[in-house]
């Protein structure tokens, strides 16, 4: 589903060029869930941005569901994101001036799906927020906002879901709720999941962990969960 070949990212700074990612190569299979972990500044979010087509590689190749992301311009990548990708962010990234329902409808409308309102209502019901559909983000708690974000991410039934520290802004109780919701829906929809996290419990839930250090992919480990799955 995702294939990265010798991906390099270099940025220009006032002190010259800075290589943020050393050549990175790996593959993610369809339906697989992986966690990218590592210290702050190790390049996790940069890698996520590249894989999701939010940013361009300096060198190397990225294939997303068989499409060569590295050859596309921003317009083509936007269309691809709209069709195949869902996102969840640490700071929720809801449009503040739209209601929960309208936020969830947004990707469906952009993708031109039929009856986005009904779809959004259904999925809001799934995340237990139907009664909050007409509230604005600032009227919702952090946990509720992230549930809206999850609903928004799944409304278009994306093939791949990228999540950047999805529980980073939440307390333990809400983190647990979000975590189980995320994996439930992931399982239900058969989505490929790529998430960046500091949260070990969350990482442990994924099939594999990619560990980043100073821009390099240093280790790929199977999680206990995966081993258990395989043993079964």
């Amino acid at each position, binding site marked *: 589903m995702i294939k990265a070949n010798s991906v390099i990212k270099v940025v220009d700074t006032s002190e010259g060029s800075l290589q943020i990612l050393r050549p990175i190569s790996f593959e993610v299979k369809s339906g697989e869930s992986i966690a990218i972990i590592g210290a702050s500044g190790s390049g996790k979010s940069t890698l996520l941005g590249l894989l999701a087509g939010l940013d361009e590689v300096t060198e190397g190749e990225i294939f997303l569901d068989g499409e060569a992301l590295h050859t596309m311009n921003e317009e083509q990548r936007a269309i691809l994101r709209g069709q195949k990708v869902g996102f969840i962010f640490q700071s929720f990234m809801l449009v*503040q*001036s739209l209601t929960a329902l309208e936020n969830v409808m947004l990707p469906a*409308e952009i993708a031109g799906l039929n009856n986005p309102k009904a779809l959004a209502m259904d999925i809001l019901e799934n995340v237990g927020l139907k009664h909050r559909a007409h509230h*604005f983000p600032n009227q919702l708690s952090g946990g509720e906002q992230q549930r809206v974000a999850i609903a928004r991410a799944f409304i278009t039934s994306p093939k791949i879901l990228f999540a950047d520290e999805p529980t980073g802004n939440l307390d333990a109780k809400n983190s647990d709720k979000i975590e189980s919701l995320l994996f439930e829906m992931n399982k239900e929809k058969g989505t490929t999941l790529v998430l960046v996290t500091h949260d070990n419990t969350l990482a442990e839930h994924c099939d594999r962990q990619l560990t980043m250090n100073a821009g390099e992919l240093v280790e790929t480990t199977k999680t206990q969960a995966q081993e258990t799955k395989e043993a079964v």
Partner: protein
Amino acid sequence: MSMSFNLAWRLFRHEARRGELTIILLAIVLSVGAVLSLSLFSERLQGALKSRSAAFIAADAQLRSDKPIDETWFDKARDEGLSTAKQVTTRSMAFNGDEMTSVDLRAVNTTYPLKGKVNITDQPFGEKQAANLLPEPGHVWVQSRLFQTLGLAIGDAIEIGDGIFVVSKVLVDIPDAGFSIFSTDPIVLMNLDDLDKTAVTGPGSRVRYVGFFAGEPDVVENFNNWLLPQLNDDLHSWRTIEDDESAIGASVARAERYFLLASLLAIVLAAVSIAVAAQRYAQRHFDPVAIMKTLGATAKTIRKIYLIQILLITALGISIGLVIGFIGQQIVVQLVADSVDVTLDVWHWRPVIIAVATGATCALLFSLYPLLQLFSVPPLRVLRKDISASMRSKSIQFIASGGAIFFLMWMYSQDLKISAILFFSGAVLVAGLLGATFLLIAVGRRLGSGSMGPWQLAWARIKRRAMDNSVQLISFSVTIMLLLVVLVMRNDMVSQWRSQLPEGTPNYFLINITPDIKPSLDRHFKDNGITINEFYPVIRGRFVSVNGEGVNTEVSKEDDANREGRRGLGREANLTWSNVLQKENEVVEGIWHGTANANYSEGRFPVSVEAEVAKRLEIKLNDMLTFNVGSEIVETKVTSIRKVNWQTMQPNFFFVIHPEAMASFKPTFITSFHLPTEQKSELTALLKPFGSITMFDVDARINQLREIVDQVSVAVEFILVLVLLAGTLVLVAQVQASMDERRQEIAILRTLGAKGALIRQSVIFEFVIIGSVAGFMAALANELSLYMLQTSVFKMKASLHFEYWAIAPTVGAIVVGLLGAMGCWRLLTLNTSQMLRKMV
């Protein structure tokens, strides 16, 4: 399209309801409201003033000609929908038995006057009343003086040329009588059909033909454009009230320019506030754009959504602005209705179109750069908040904003000069301010170090937010400068108007005072408690040659077109002599002959010539001028050229000769005095002992003039208030916009435990610093703009205004500081968690 529209409409609806569009909406409402109310009010006022002023030329426009005016021109004017009237003017002699005198003959057709009234009375010097009709054929109406001079009574007959006419009314005045004190002859008004009977317009006579035209301004202008190529500069002159060089014409023209200026400044103010608001609007939408792009929205979709939203905002802003602007000016009109005669019945479309165009152009062009910035926000911002718009070039912003302002000013004023002056001084101000900002930052770097008190915090913030502050400083300065220009311009203009007609301006003139009765007249007036002004000696003389070359002393219609030789005055001149330069006279070339170092020789006495007449008759410094006074020849040499302010109510002379030259002549004297209008009834008794003296009553004219000046001044003050109001609102919008940006910083400071007082004081100090610097820069730029405006647009004396160098920074510091305090107070009433939540 429907998806983009739905999304745009949804965003617009929610954001408007949640108050997120308040600032940009307010800016558009303000711009449209201010421009509409100002231009609607000034249009109405101008309409009123114009129709009033039109009375002084008896029409909206006059065509004066030395030859009969082509009848087809009148036909064409009537076809276009203009009303027309005719007048033939000449000087002639009127006889009553053995008595005779020179008269100013005005023969008019029945449609005269198109504007203003002919006033008559039944008794000489009686109470005037407006005449509905004109003299019937065979009848004439004559001025009171003629009754004195010719010993007439109502019903008597007088001879003019070959015709005999019955004097049926006393003529008090006609609208286009003019102001000249030396148009000494009494007016005789007759029916145009009677003119041929007099046969006074034959060869050798000096006749002026006047065509009057009145109608809608654009029709008059179109007619003028059609007529212009057919006119001969030597024969014809086209006059409108704007060309009127009298005090009224000048006041109205100046007032019009002031209204124009005030409206232009309102446009600039509006533009500044929209620019500030649009920038803020775009910044607030960086996140939503990044989110939508991340979720798959293409650049085209984003462009559509935001263009539709801006159009929706603009449409709403314009609609509210139109309503508020209309109500605003209606209130002003009601307030001034007592003191200003404003036409209320006419609906003017031009201001509405201007207001809508201003709102739309400002909103769209000033949003252009912020929107382009918005469109360029990369989707990666969802992961990295520090990434904002990828557009770095500010040149598009400067070109778009500068171009928009200049375009609006030019389109609105149709006057490249006034637009260029304002634009240029604005540009200089902006450049100066950029320099000042960097200087300020350099100073602040020193002051801002040390322990963290409110001053240090204020300086540190100014330093850190250098670019934002420079933009804010520039917008504050431009606002303050524009307010200063409008304020100072109004003060200078009103005081110069008032100085033209100070209290005690002479309202009566006496002429034909012989030297033997001069002392007794002086004494008699003193005994009655009336101060007589200076006596000017006057003698009639014919200007006959320049450097020995003869000039045409008579101008007739036959020789006018094919004139040979030098141009002359065409009539006798009133010569005076004095060593003292009159008030409001200024020597522009040579040396005034009364000064000690001016000497003369060769038996030629110095003469000072008025600048306009010198130009017209091609007289230069050191030319030898010869005058024929009675049977004597007076040889003179031009030693000075004078500029004369014709707008003053005092006798002015083309030629002032050295007193020695005239020592042997017996002059008559002319003088003037002021008598309060309520004492008018004492006049007859006052003048009874001096039957040979002729008196001119200009009291009514002066009162009319003063009334107009007062009305214009009141109107100008209201416009000043409107502009001040608009300016204050702009400042409020600017402070509000910047407060929004400060919220995050205040939240952090509060979280870190900073006391409310420290935050409040630091914010106030920051605004005080910005306000005082902006005020000072504005005062400097104000001098530059005023100098250019006064010298090249308003034709006034330029002056420096040092007081504002202190007032502007002080007021700037206080007002901006206060606004900062108010904005900050609102933020401090929110608790920290509310603020932090708003930051997310």
